[in-house]
Each structure stands twice: as structure tokens, then as C-alpha cells.
């Protein structure tokens, strides 16, 4: 069969495919999960992704921009997949989701540092599940007999103690907003944000009555309209994705600056450039300095070892 490059766009998904006799590449953008944050557009090393603003209809909530991918430019490297905070893009090769940009260390893995210590869990509590704005948490409880327990509060204290709690977080879709962590009384959940940054809202520029940013923010409670008719930020639950900044009609009214990306360590030119675009040259520079320090450290270590070895050798000869 000849090589086929296909593209399909529907209200649910945007799908790109490379079909070859022996290889099948698929890129799928889940439009339900996509929030229009546009991190993919800056992350893509081939500049293949564009976002198209959707016109605002008076009286309706603001709409997130529509993401489009240029078939001619996309090479299915999957960098968009790696950095999408919401896990909305998935790239697979022959059905496998292993990305070679990660395995070959051309790009780092975005770190979603989420730990749940279920030993601390209050056996009756379901707060985190309720708190997740994206419904990514599933709590399951089993009794000593291994059977699922529905109403924990009905159990005897011993029975309660012997209940095992499992908290399943669909990590790959989690933007690490920490909403669950804040709602967790016993402090069982700890999360490090994958992206950190600063959002600045200039009150005087923010048009009264506009709530476009709050309309598109996927994390309820992060952006709220105050009594002054202006928008307020709760940066504790903000994932710094930037969906808000993209729809704000007023230039400079709401700005985002990302300061940090939590990721595994790699040494790669492409990543350096991507980091510069996702954060800013200044912040990227900081990371590069840190990286360089690390490399120097390695070199020194190596030299040290070499010298030690030489010394050892000499002593042996002597």
C-alpha cells in the first residue's frame, strides 16, 4: 500500500495519521480535554500547531481557541503529547505510546510529581475525589475480605480500621493544580506543580462584567469574579496553563509568565529551545546555568576518579 498521510477533524477529536505498510503513526487531539492553553503550539519543534481564536458571541460563555495541526509540518515526534498539561494529545506508533523523543532523551518527561499516602487517609473521606475539577480521581475501598465497601461509616471501628483505601489518579491527564491536596484534611496527597509561574491581573484594565478568562479556566475556583466586577485569581490551584491569557480581550489585562517546568533531566538542543519558548529566555537561562553547573560537577567528578585511579595504579606499580 502506498504511504498515506491523513487528517480528520471532528467536534470530538483532531486525528492525524501516517499509514505505511509496516508503520502506523497516529496523533489524536481529544477536544474534550483540550482547554486551549496553547502550550503545544510553543512546544512543537516544527511549529506545526496553530490556535485559532473563536469569535465571542454576546451573552454566551467565551470559547477556547481551536487547535489545528499542519499535516505537512507534523512529524509525529510527540512533543505536544509530552507537554500538554491535560494529556489531551496522544501520539502512538503501531499502537504503542512509547515516544522516542523521550527514550532517546531528546526531550524530558514532564514530571507530574503526585504522591498519595493512603495510610493517612480518613477511611470515610472522599474529599479529593470531589475536589478534582477534572474528575480524574477514583477512590475505592475494600474491606478485610477484599470486597468493595460502599458505606464505610456503617462499619464497626475495627472493620473501619481494616478498610483499605486506594486513590487512583489518572495522572497522565492531571494538570497538577493541587485542588485535591488543599481539600485533603489529613495531608495524604502531596503534589508538585509541573508548571509554575506568575499571573498578573491589572485591575484597571480588566473590563467590568467580562468573565472570559473564568469561562475557559478548567479549574473551578481559580478565577472568580469579585464584588467589584473584576476577576480574582487563586494562584494556589492555578496550573499556569495560560488558557485564560489566550482569551482575555484586553491586551495586558491578564498576563502569564511561566517560571519553571518540572521535568526529568536531559541534554538536548531542541529541549533548550522549547524551554525558552514555554518559559522565557531569562528563566531558561537560569535552568541552563544550573545544567552547566551539573555538567561541570560531573566532569570534576570524573577527573577526580581518574586521578584517584592513576594514584592507585601508581601505588600498585610502586
Amino acid at each position: 500500500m502506498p504511504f498515506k498521510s491523513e487528517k480528520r477533524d471532528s467536534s470530538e477529536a483532531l486525528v492525524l495519521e501516517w499509514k505505511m505498510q509496516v508503520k502506523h503513526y497516529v496523533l489524536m487531539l481529544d477536544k474534550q480535554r483540550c482547554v486551549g492553553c496553547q502550550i503545544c503550539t510553543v512546544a512543537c519543534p516544527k511549529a506545526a500547531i496553530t490556535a485559532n481564536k473563536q469569535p465571542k458571541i454576546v451573552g454566551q460563555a467565551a470559547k477556547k481557541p481551536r487547535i489545528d495541526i499542519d499535516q505537512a509540518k507534523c512529524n509525529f515526534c510527540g512533543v505536544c503529547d509530552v507537554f500538554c498539561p491535560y494529556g489531551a494529545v496522544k501520539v502512538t506508533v503501531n499502537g504503542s505510546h512509547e515516544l522516542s523523543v523521550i527514550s532517546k532523551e531528546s526531550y524530558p518527561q514532564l514530571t507530574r510529581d503526585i504522591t498519595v499516602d493512603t495510610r493517612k487517609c480518613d477511611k470515610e473521606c472522599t474529599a479529593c475525589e470531589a475536589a478534582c475539577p477534572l474528575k480524574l480521581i477514583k477512590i475505592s475501598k475494600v474491606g478485610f475480605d477484599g470486597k468493595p465497601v460502599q458505606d464505610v461509616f456503617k462499619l464497626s471501628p475495627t472493620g473501619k480500621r481494616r478498610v483499605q483505601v486506594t486513590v487512583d489518579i489518572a495522572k497522565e491527564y492531571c494538570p497538577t493544580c493541587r485542588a485535591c491536596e488543599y481539600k485533603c484534611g489529613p495531608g495524604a496527597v502531596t503534589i508538585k506543580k509541573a508548571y509554575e509561574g506568575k499571573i498578573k491581573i491589572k485591575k484597571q484594565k480588566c473590563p467590568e462584567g467580562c468573565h472570559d478568562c473564568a469561562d475557559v479556566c478548567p479549574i473551578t475556583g481559580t478565577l472568580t469574579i469579585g464584588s467589584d466586577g473584576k476577576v480574582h485569581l487563586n494562584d494556589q490551584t492555578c496550573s499556569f496553563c495560560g488558557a485564560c491569557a489566550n482569551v482575555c480581550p484586553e491586551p495586558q489585562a491578564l498576563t502569564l509568565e511561566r517560571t519553571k517546568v518540572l521535568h526529568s533531566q536531559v541534554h538536548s538542543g531542541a529541549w533548550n529551545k522549547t524551554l525558552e519558548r514555554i518559559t522565557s529566555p531569562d528563566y531558561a537561562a537560569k535552568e541552563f546555568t544550573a545544567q552547566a553547573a551539573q555538567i561541570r560537577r560531573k566532569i570534576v567528578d570524573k577527573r577526580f576518579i581518574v586521578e584517584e585511579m592513576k594514584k592507585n595504579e601508581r601505588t600498585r606499580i610502586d
Partner: protein
Amino acid sequence: MNAQESTKPQELRVGVFVCHCGLNIAGTVDVHAVSEYAKTLPDVVFVKENRYTCADPGQEEIRKAIQTQNLNRIVVAACSPRMHEATFRRTVAEAGLNSFLYEMANIREFASWCHQNDPAAATERAKDAVRMAVAKVRLMQPLQTIEVPVTNKALVVGGGIAGINAALDLAEQGYKVYMLENSQSIGGHMAALDKTFPTLDCSICIEGPKMVDCARHPNITIFANSELVKCDGYVGNFKVKIRKNPRYVIAEKCTGCGECKDACPIEYPNEWDLNLGTRKAISVPFDQTVPLVYSINKDYCIECFKCIDVCGARDAIDFDQQPEEVEIDVGAIVVSTGFDIYLPYDMPLLGYGKYPNVVTSMEFERLILAAGPTGGKVIRQSDGQKPRRIAFIQCVGSRDKEHYPYCSNYCCMYTLKHVVQLKEKYKENIEVYVFYMDIRSPSKGYEEFYDRARERSVNFIRGRVSRIDEDPATHNLTVHSEDSLLGQPIEIEADMVVLATASIPKKGSEEVARILNLSRDADGFFMEAHPKLKPLDAPTDGIFFAGACAGLKDIPYSVSQGSGAASRAATVISKPKWKIEPIISIVDEEKCKRCGICVSKCPYGAIRQEKGQPATVITASCHGCGTCVAECPSHAITQMHFTDAQILAQIKAALQDKPEEKILAFLCNWCSYAGADLAGTSRCDYPASVRAIRVMCSGRVSREFILEALRLGAGAVLVGACHLPYDCHYINGNYKMKDRTDALKATLTKLGLSPERFRVEYVSAAEGIHYAEVIKEIDGQRRALGKEKIQTENVKLKPFLENMLKHK
């Protein structure tokens, strides 16, 4: 050239030698009368009859007379110049006279032999022939054979199996060879094949060593990943500009270890593998690549620089590499750019590109190849399963008027190869069907190979396939055809269908043709100088063809052509100097109006005309057809040895007496003159009213010649040319003549000329009878019109003709 000598006033002393040719001439023509008549012609100071002028004593007479009689122009009235022109040129030169100061009058083929029943008329015609020859020779100028130095190096364009053989043969003969290949590796299609018919030896195993030999040979320099940009110059002296496209890897530093490929995260469809599989953003197209240098495809590379990391101290990667242009000097060029494969997307009924289990033969070749993307497993795209029933369909696009009318030459054979391979690999576990129109297996061992397929119970079904349907659930296919042997429709279910698609002219051939000034035939392949006698020569001197680029050929044929082209190229580059016949065109700078018309009319691209500058003829590229001379609106071009003045003098001499009873024929040297010769040799009798003037090409026949002939009252005018479309010895001079005479004929008819008095006729060298018939017909028409009618017409036409001639 030598025009300065013409300015020296010199007394003309013409010697005429009348040959008896035993009784061949003397038996019909009254040779004494002819010699007596010759004596009366202007400037003729010496006349001699010989029994056999071409024999030694005859030649000696000429030499002696030149010296004792101080002759400076010679006319030999004997046989056809196509027979002995060269002989007497030598004779004349031996006597110390410039060999271009002599002319032949053909009184054998054009008189004694074709008018045997009318000796008186034959004699009249012979006298006229001598008169015309004397008229021309009086205006002839001494000419020197031109010599140009030769660069003893060659360029081979296209490194397929044909080009590889050409390069190796030339290099082995000791010549420096440059090999230009636009893909990343030499090898061409053969490097991608699995086995080769009819012996089923592994293709890359036999080609690989030759590719390596090319890379290692001290006389060969390969420019791969490079393209032809420009070519100036001419035979022996080409200046070629080549662009080396960036690989982003420094060839000299790359060791070919491939570590970068392993580090690279990015894959893209491998075009060399027909996109069945992938290659890395930094990679070679296939393992045996020659030259073994990696390349980065920036369209896909994400610039992670992992490759730079692993390349390390070898430091071979350079992301800033720029295209580089190099200029080389060569004496000869071999073009071996091969072919492409037709992808039948525009035949929707076959479902290629729509049904996953329909593949082309070239794709099949990659599937069955052990080193191919599937590791040699023939599997279906739809489910990765091995097909149990495979149908092969022949002539997809080939022998199809809607697509490619020609036969692609080797598809029958490679399909037989595929079916034998399948049957021998999978035995009874596979059913094979071949839908064919004819099985063509004409070479050595090929028919036996066909037998081998038949013995392995392959089902051969004769018929054109009308459509293929697919079951959307199983992706199995149904082939609908007609079984023309049974005269019934037939349907076959198959798990996979293989289409033997046409091979087509290589993409970019047009560009190559433009740069090297080549012509392409109606199918788009390069056109040879002569399909039979010069199958390896391009019309442009010094350029040769090898392999599939000039018409499809299988490997053994392409290999022989490679060696053949090498030997043809060696005929040029083995010489220190290249000799050129001086019968070329020159431009008078004063008269040239810089219109550039000649540039577009020269079949060889031998004329250059820069803006505002007078046109110049590249001497070594000019073939001497004279087409430009006839086309130049300012009369600025002269063809040496066939000048306007010389031909006009011949016209005048031919029509001196009773012009209305004469047919004046302009015959091109290669076809119609040869055809007329054959009419004589075959003793075809035809009317003696015709008077013939030889030109090299019908393209040389100017409007003025025809107008002048009619002005002088000719009964009829004939222009004889080579057959359209391909017979012209000068590529397309006959077309130029046709355009010109079509227009002229319309004008003349409007002015009142009876249309039968001006005729263009295509006569091949084999059509002696046809020529005789044409003359008979014209003569009959001339008689039917009658002398009076012709004379009245002439009187009426004369002022118009004079006016038209004056304008020029």
C-alpha cells in the same frame, strides 16, 4: 572564415571531368556532347573525359590537370556525391587544392540510369547538371576543417546500473570520470530490487560491488545528492556546473558508523523504500549506500543535536552547511538518468491507494526482499497476515492509449520473477494468478523462465482487468476481468493484488533536456540521434545515452548500453583534437538585427544571442543544416558551402532554357536525395524534366529559392524532405521547412499559382519508386496545365514575386 581569400581577385580556372563510368553513363548519355558543351561554359578552361574517374588513373588525371593546367575549381560529372564526394575531395587535396573547391554533377543516378529510354533527354539533363555545377563551383570558397581541443574527461549523469557501467569502463580506460547522482546514493532502481530475472541472483549482491568499485576508483569522483545546474560549451569542451546540496554532514569526516542514526529520535517515511517503512532524520537511505555518508533531513529534524553528541570527536555534523556549486570541464557526457514508476492513482477502478492490499510491483519487490521493511515477509497491510491468493495484473498504464501507449519492456519478466519466487518460497500454500495481455519474453533464457513459471502451476489468464472490488470487512479483493481465450468474464478472489505499473520518464527529464539541449520523444524519453545507427548518441555531439532514460531497458541491456556509451564517449575524449566539417553557419554582425529568431530555430541550440548583441554560432555545436539561414529575416546568416549566392546560381543555371518545362527539385542530402539516387540505382524510369539541387537539410530551403525559381518561370517546384516526425537528420529541420512552405504555399495560391506547381514531398532513402512516381505525377500535372497556362500565370505572378524578393 577564409572569407578574406575571396576578396583577392583571382582568375577562375575551372576544370570539368566527365566520367563514362564504363557504359553506365556513356551507354545512355552522349558524354562527348556533354564535354563539348562544358567547354562553352564560363571560366571552364579544361575538360577531360575518363572511363572511370574514381579509379586510380582517373584520379591521377585530375591531380595532373590541377597542376599542369593551374586549375583552381573542379567539377566532376559522374555519379552521386553521396557515393564519391569524399573520394574526389581527397584527390583534389592531394593535388594541393583546397578540397572545398570542387563540386559534383550527378549524371549517373540522376541522368543515365533514370532516363535510359530517352538518351537525348538524359544528355540534356546531364548538360544542365554540369552547367549548374559550374555555376556553383565558380562561387565556392576554400574552407578549412575546424579543430577544437578536447578535455579528456567525462561526466556521467545518473548513477544507476547503466551509469555505473559507463563510469567504470571509462575510468578503466584511464579517463577521469565525474559521476553526478541526485539522490543520496548511486545504484538506481537495481539497488532496490530483490532478485533479478532470469537467474534469480540477489540484485544488491551483484550491483553492490560495482557501486563500491565506483567509489574506490581513483579515476572516479562521485557527486551524490547533487544536481545539474548548467552546461555550456560543446563537444570536447563542456563546462558543467553542479550544485552539491547540503547533507548537514561533512562527507570527508563521516565514517558511516551510524551511531547518530541510533541516537536520533525522529523517523520519516523512507522514499527509497517506497515509503513502506521509515528512516531516521539522520540516516542513509539503505545499508549499502554509496557514498556512505549520512544526511540530515531538515524537514523532519527537530534539532535536538543528539547526533552531534554521539558523533563527538569525529565532528562530522554541520548544521550550517550550505549548497555548494562546483564547475567541471569535460569532453563528453553520458546521460543515464533512468526512469520512474507510475502510481495509478488516476485509475480508481483498480483501487490503488484506496484498498490497503493493492500494491505496485516495485512495492512488492521491497516486501519480498529480506532486507526490506517487513524483513522479507510478504504481508498484507490491512492485517499483517500472509496472503494465500495473490493476483498479478500486467500492463497497468502500459500499452494503454489513455496513459502510456508504449510497452514498459520488462514488466512481464519481473512478474514472472515474482510468481516464481512466491511459488518456490511458499509452494502449494500460495495460489497465484497472472492477468496479462501478452507475455513478452524475447531475450536469452527468458522464454525458459516463462516455462519455469508455467511448470509451477501459476494460473495465467489472458485479459484486461476491468475493476477490483474490496470486501470492506475482510479487505479481500475481487478481480473482475475478461478471459479473452475463453471469451468469458472471470472473477477471481485474492488476498493481495500486485499491479505491474508502467515505467515512465524520470521526473526532471525536462530540466535535464533543457540544460543539455536534448530532445525527448512523444513518450517523454530522450531521443537518440538515430534510432538504429546512433542509438547511444544524443543529437548534440559529445553527449551519449545509456540505460532506461532513452527508452525502457532491462538490466543486461542497460549494462551493455553503459559500456557502449563509454566507448562512444571515448571516441571523443581519446582524441587531442576534435575535427568539425566547415559546412557551418556564420552570422554577419552588421546585418544581424538581434531578433533572436535563429536561436529558437536552430535544432541544436548552437546559436547564442545575448540581449542587444549580434547572434553568434557555436561552431562546434553547429551541424550545418542551414535552417537558421533560411529563417533569418535579415539575411544575416550564411551557410558555408551552401551559400545563398551559390544556390541562386544553381537555380538560375537550371532554369536557363525553357524553364516552364522544368521541375526544379530541392532535395535534402539524407533522405530525399538518397531516395532519388535509389530511383536511379533501381533504374526507375521517370521524366527527365526534373533538375535537382542538393541541400543538406530541407530546413535550408529559403522562401527566396522558391520565389526565385518561380520568378524565373519554373514549371513546378518540389521540396523533398525526410519523413515527419522523426526522420530528419537534423532533428526537426523538416518541420521548420514545413511551417515555412505551408505559409508560402497559401500566399502563392492566393496570388494565382496553380497549387500543383509547388509541392512538398517526403521521401525516405528507401523510397526510390516513390520519388519516381512523384516526378511522374508532377510532370503529368505540368503537361496537363500546358505551357501557355504556365506562362500566363508566370506573367501575372512576376510583379508580385519581384516585389516579394525585393522586400527581403
